[in-house]
């Protein structure tokens, strides 16, 4: 590990995008479960997710990034589908 002469001043992080290297998935108490059959692909979950943990492919939701998802539940709260396409489950249940 770097000594005090080498680390950036005052705790600054001087490179961008370093959050990707920080695994925050272990913080979850609840995990979001995505139900593909109910999803209307509005992408609101993708817009609202504070951790960029909604995974897209070709502009469509394909699942959740459980390495970074902290389980805040904003995606489930914002989901406008008549039957919610994202539901929160206790982390001990539904391990995948």
């Amino acid at each position, binding site marked *: *590990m*770097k*000594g*005090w002469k080498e*680390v*950036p*001043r*005052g*705790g*600054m*992080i*001087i490179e*961008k995008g*370093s959050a990707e290297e920080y695994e925050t998935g272990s913080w979850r108490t609840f995990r979001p479960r995505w139900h593909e059959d109910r999803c209307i692909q509005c992408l609101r979950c993708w817009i609202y997710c504070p951790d960029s943990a909604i995974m897209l492919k070709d502009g469509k939701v394909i699942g959740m990034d459980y390495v970074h998802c902290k389980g805040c539940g904003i995606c489930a709260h914002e989901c406008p589908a008549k039957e919610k396409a994202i539901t929160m489950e206790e982390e001990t249940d539904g391990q995948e």
Partner: protein
Amino acid sequence: MATKTKAKPKKRKKVAGVRTAMNGNDSVAEAFRQIDPDVVAAYPITPQTELMHKFAGFVSNGEVTTKFVLVESEHSAMSCVIGASCGGCRCVTATSANGLALMWEMVYIAASLRCPIVMGVVNRALSGPINIHCDHSDSMGARDSGWIQLYSENCQEAYDNTIQAVRIAETPDVLLPVMVTLDGFILSHTTEVLEILPDEAVQEFIGEYAPDYYLLNPDHPITVGPLDLPDYYFEHKRQQVEAMEAAPAAITDVAADFEKLTGRGYGFIERYRLDDAKVAVVVLGSTAGTAKAVVDMLREEGKPVGMIKLRVFRPFPVEEILDALSGLDALAVFDRSASFGAMGGPVYLEILAALRGKELPVVNCIYGLGGRDIGPGLIRPVFEDLLAGKTDPRVRYVGVRE
């Protein structure tokens, strides 16, 4: 960010100032006007209120380009200038006593994030019972917060220290915030004659603030203030120690350049009639003026007395102090604050630590709490006791009713 000046020239000529009359608050506000900071945030508290009142007038009249942020507390004031400083702005603020106490958390963070903020601290007793008058309990409490501290004897020094503080703070290997203190009411509300530099001379002297890393730089995004756990926190504190150790060179260089500009020299300490003195006192702030008058009085009577004024309390100038004390037989250290449960006041403890292993008897005079007046009549007996070899009790309360 917004900076308005050219790089400072290598050769400097003395510039004619304008002699005028101002009180301490106005003199610091005038320095702030000439500095023309990018961002100022402040909250009113006696006796500082008039300082920012005056500065707000400069903002309203368009005499500065500063963004002045009105906040709901001192905690917010310090938070705001920290945010702006991290954003790349030159920032100043001011406060007193309870206001400084309310910003406490952020005072430490300003130093830890290495924000070169300049703050006027108009010294006032830190309650209670509630008191609005001068003592040093506010800024002395902040002595371990990581800020550089400059104490001012008079309005001229408050003005001069404020201008020098900008360059000291922004020195690349320092990057620490600076408190410029002035005694509440005794200086803040007392009109004195002082010399004000031309605006362009101040701008040229302080130069352009060019931070290496700042938040509002889209070409180089950074993160400021992330969680710092046991794996790195200690390294960042060690850096802060190093920054404080780099401060003396910056303080010396800036003072030398300032002297070329103004003819007014500044050191870490001021020695007053000390050369052949056998006994002396150490004082901070406006009390130095009174102590000088007492020294003059006693010198006329042939007594070998002198005075040491501490201008810089953080970083503490150990070498300069030891050098100044080397020929003395006895010393009295004046503290305008108490450190309850300690062996004496904070300045006394610092001097004792500097003198470790040396034989010099040192007494501590705690005085002036809550604005209690300190006149020549109270200082003279302290010298007389020292001259008579009376160094007990070690800690005395000068001016209190028994």
